[in-house]
């Protein structure tokens, strides 16, 4: 496989052999370790020195199911630290089958210049002038590019928010139907892409480059066993196809952990109007799709297609985090408005989560009433238009808080929280505070251990045991995001036999012995590089804290605050820091 380096300053492309140190890496390990090696930590995130790296997972392109993840990495303009955000769709698989291990975007296009990068078979990559496409929304853009270049293209692009370099700008990528509805949403990486002067990657989906596997038979056997386990599991085999991630709405609310009205409560009165069960019923009644395949190599089909009463397409896929961010968090119980906001964010190229939290802070500060979906839609439209208020919303919750002098800003390292209140699920307090990524749920999702088995194997409302489970999950997830395995296909590795299949595949592909220790070391190596970068970028332990509201305001209905101490937070990754 090869690296494709693109210099936007000199408008040149270069193919490079993969250096030995990167050979067994992929996904998040590749983006994070390479950024730590190549980007000065003090670089301006939207400047020439920053690099934007797109890397398929280590298993992407192989026969293993649910490995169509693309890691996107850079120094984040939102957090000021390192960032990896990953996305499904078709792009990762397509890049891998073109023999590309990573695309590295360097430099910055000259003022006024804008480009698309067209990547085709046989090492052909061309920067194409795209000045006229600047400002275009993603649905119109992808349609135009597919008309021009054919529909067998995967398109990964930014919308007006990325063009405006807003700090909540996402990078959108097309699904199997060619819609730009899959998002590398977090960390404002769309702004980095806009700053580089890159509107879109156009990637040929018909690559046939074989993925090198040292022991094909052994790999195949383990990959089949893995797929069987994912199919057999109730969550990935039955629940996700029926409800998608929206199935989480009711139980998280029942746990009092559904952040409502800018996290003033852990339960939302309108929950049954926006639950996964309601969403699935509405979609079925209207003739939409509750089960939909969004990504290459997927056998779970957790995606859906939400439609209007008349059956017209609104958005794909309506997910738990967005239902929360554009629903409970802003006090909105109108599912149609949530779907509309989801579409708008995809079309404009905004992270639904950071944008929803930004709206929640604005509403909390009195800009509009909680539940005012029309105001939410108007403000998101303003972000696309680049009005003053629109830019404030599009720059995220921190910018909104500063503008209104409002001190209830639920962010860590500048990034808006996710859909689990850290007071009601204290393990998520540890993950939000300590992941190098800023408040992020996928970095270390410990909700199951806090709630399942009739009330959790740890007490969700107490600090005891939370650091350990968050640490272990974060290290595990750093390895999962390196392998490129979809979060929802983790049922395949949830058992001892399952994770053994993954080790077998790591070994069969690389030709090296691989076991639990190697897996843990891989995850630790990734986080260590990220922590090192963040330290050099100026982030300190004080940045590994939650905002005061979570320590000072008891959250109804449990009326608890975060109890994990600063010393406990620091103990999570002290052993991976250079200075410990």
């Amino acid at each position, binding site marked *: 496989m090869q690296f494709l380096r693109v210099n936007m300053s000199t408008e040149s492309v270069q193919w490079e052999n993969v250096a030995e140190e990167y050979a067994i890496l992929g996904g998040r390990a590749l983006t994070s370790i390479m950024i730590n090696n190549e980007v000065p930590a003090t670089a301006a995130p939207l400047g020439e020195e920053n690099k934007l790296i797109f890397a398929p997972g280590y298993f992407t392109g192989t026969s293993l199911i649910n490995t169509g993840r693309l890691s996107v990495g850079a120094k984040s303009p939102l957090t000021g630290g390192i960032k990896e955000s990953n996305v499904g769709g078709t792009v990762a698989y397509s890049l891998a089958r073109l023999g590309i291990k990573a695309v590295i975007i360097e430099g910055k296009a000259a003022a006024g210049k804008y480009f698309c990068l067209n990547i085709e078979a046989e090492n052909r990559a061309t920067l194409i002038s795209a000045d006229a496409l600047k400002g275009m929304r993603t649905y119109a853009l992808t349609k135009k590019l597919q008309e021009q270049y054919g529909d067998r293209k995967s398109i990964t692009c930014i919308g007006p928010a990325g063009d405006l370099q807003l700090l909540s700008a996402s990078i959108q990528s097309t699904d199997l139907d060619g819609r730009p509805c899959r998002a590398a949403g977090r960390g404002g990486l769309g702004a980095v892409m806009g700053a580089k002067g890159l509107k879109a990657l156009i990637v040929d989906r018909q690559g046939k480059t074989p993925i090198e596997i040292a022991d094909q038979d052994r790999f195949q056997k383990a990959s089949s066993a893995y797929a069987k386990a994912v199919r057999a599991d109730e969550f990935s085999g039955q629940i996700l196809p029926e409800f998608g*991630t929206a199935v989480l709405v009711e*139980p998280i609310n029942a746990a009092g952990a559904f952040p409502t009205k800018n996290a003033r409560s852990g339960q939302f009165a309108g929950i049954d109007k926006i639950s996964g069960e309601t969403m699935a019923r509405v979609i079925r009644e209207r003739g939409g799709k509750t089960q939909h395949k969004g990504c290459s190599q997927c056998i779970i089909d957790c995606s859906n297609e939400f439609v209007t009463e008349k059956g017209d397409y609104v958005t794909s896929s309506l997910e738990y985090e967005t239902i929360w961010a554009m629903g409970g968090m802003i006090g909105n119980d109108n599912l149609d408005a949530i779907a509309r906001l989801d579409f708008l964010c995809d079309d404009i190229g905004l992270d639904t989560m950071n944008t929803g939290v930004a709206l929640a802070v604005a509403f909390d500060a009195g800009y509009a009433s909680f539940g005012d979906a029309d105001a939410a839609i108007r403000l998101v439209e303003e972000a696309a238009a680049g009005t003053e208020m629109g830019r404030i919303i599009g720059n995220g919750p921190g910018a909104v808080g500063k503008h209104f002098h409002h001190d209830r800003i639920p962010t860590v390292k500048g990034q808006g929280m996710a859909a689990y209140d850290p007071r009601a699920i204290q393990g998520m307090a540890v993950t939000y505070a300590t992941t190098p990524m800023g408040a992020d749920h996928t970095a270390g999702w410990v909700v199951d251990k806090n709630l*399942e*088995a*009739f009330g959790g194997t740890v007490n969700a409302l107490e600090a005891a045991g939370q650091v350990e489970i968050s640490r272990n999950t974060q290290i595990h997830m750093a390895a999962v995001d390196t392998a490129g395995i979809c979060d929802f296909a983790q049922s395949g590795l949830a058992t001892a036999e399952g994770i053994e299949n993954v080790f077998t595949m790591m070994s069969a592909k690389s030709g090296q012995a691989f076991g639990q220790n190697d897996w843990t070391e891989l995850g630790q190596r990734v986080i260590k590089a990220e922590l090192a970068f963040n330290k050099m970028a100026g982030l300190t332990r004080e940045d590994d804290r939650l905002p005061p509201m979570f320590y000072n305001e008891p959250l109804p209905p449990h009326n608890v605050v975060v109890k994990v101490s600063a010393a406990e937070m620091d103990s999570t990754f002290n052993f991976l820091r250079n200075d410990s």
Partner: protein
Amino acid sequence: MKIRLKLYGTLPAHYPGLYPDSGLIVDISENTTVADLVERVKLPQEHVAIVAINGMLAKAEDVLPEGAEIKFFQPLNGG
């Protein structure tokens, strides 16, 4: 005494037609616990991971109060 039991996710599919959206009224004796109820309705234990009593997370040994609304949820995976 009676309680109202609602099943979520794909749990109702295990009992086609039995659980209306408004829930199933179940007669129970005093001091019935969450664990007793799971056994009583004969749901495989591994299918029920989270239980709420009147909107609050419950533990296996919690006793069901009269007239309570009980919700059963399945195991979850990441967000």
